């Protein structure tokens, strides 16, 4: 069964450094998402992406964050100048089509640790 893959599984970065998290969504999916889960807290929506542009974003997704689909397969989340509070699990997800009544399929996540 096709799946969403994320790399790396664990990223350790110094505060203030830039980090890029990578995702390969399921190949025929059109909508892509990033979520994060701070340890012990709920999974939170960051951003959705469709047709090469941001479709929705949350208050968390400020100017420090950006997303890109650099080629036909990858979907990346960049954090420009990381802060301690950016430490979390970051999940990429994708869904098949235009309807909101379709499930989102998640990757296993990247654990981001900011030192």
């Amino acid at each position: 069964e096709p799946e969403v893959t994320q790399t790396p599984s664990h990223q350790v970065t110094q505060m203030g450094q830039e980090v890029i998290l990578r995702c390969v969504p399921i190949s025929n999916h059109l909508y892509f998402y990033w979520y994060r889960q701070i340890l012990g807290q709920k999974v939170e929506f960051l951003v959705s992406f469709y047709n090469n542009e941001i479709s929705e974003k949350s208050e968390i997704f400020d100017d420090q964050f950006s997303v890109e689909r650099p080629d036909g397969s990858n979907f990346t989340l960049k954090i420009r100048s990381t802060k301690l509070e950016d430490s979390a699990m970051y999940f990429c997800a994708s869904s098949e089509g235009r309807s909101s009544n379709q499930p989102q399929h998640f990757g296993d996540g990247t654990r981001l640790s900011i030192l």
Partner: protein
Amino acid sequence: SQQGEEDPQALSIQEGENATMNCSYKTSINNLQWYRQNSGRGLVHLILIRSNEREKHSGRLRVTLDTSKKSSSLLITASRAADTASYFCATVSTSGSARQLTFGSGTQLTVLP
């Protein structure tokens, strides 16, 4: 309670028993989805129920939705040790073109062999 709150927070049962988890939400929704998360892993989609549906089955899973009470339940029948995981409900609201999932805090299910 906040959007997508599950109860109980933790549930411990014997293998073979049924497990019921509940979810409440606040806003109007397009659909409600249930996900499972094993420790340290990603979220696995279990089942999606649309706002105009009342009940849905998938294998050992049964989901109900009561939009008048803004609540849903997930029933896992004949539980197995492998069902041990956290279970989350997540809603997609009706506002605009929203597709974002709003997650609850989850129920930690432990199935004892």
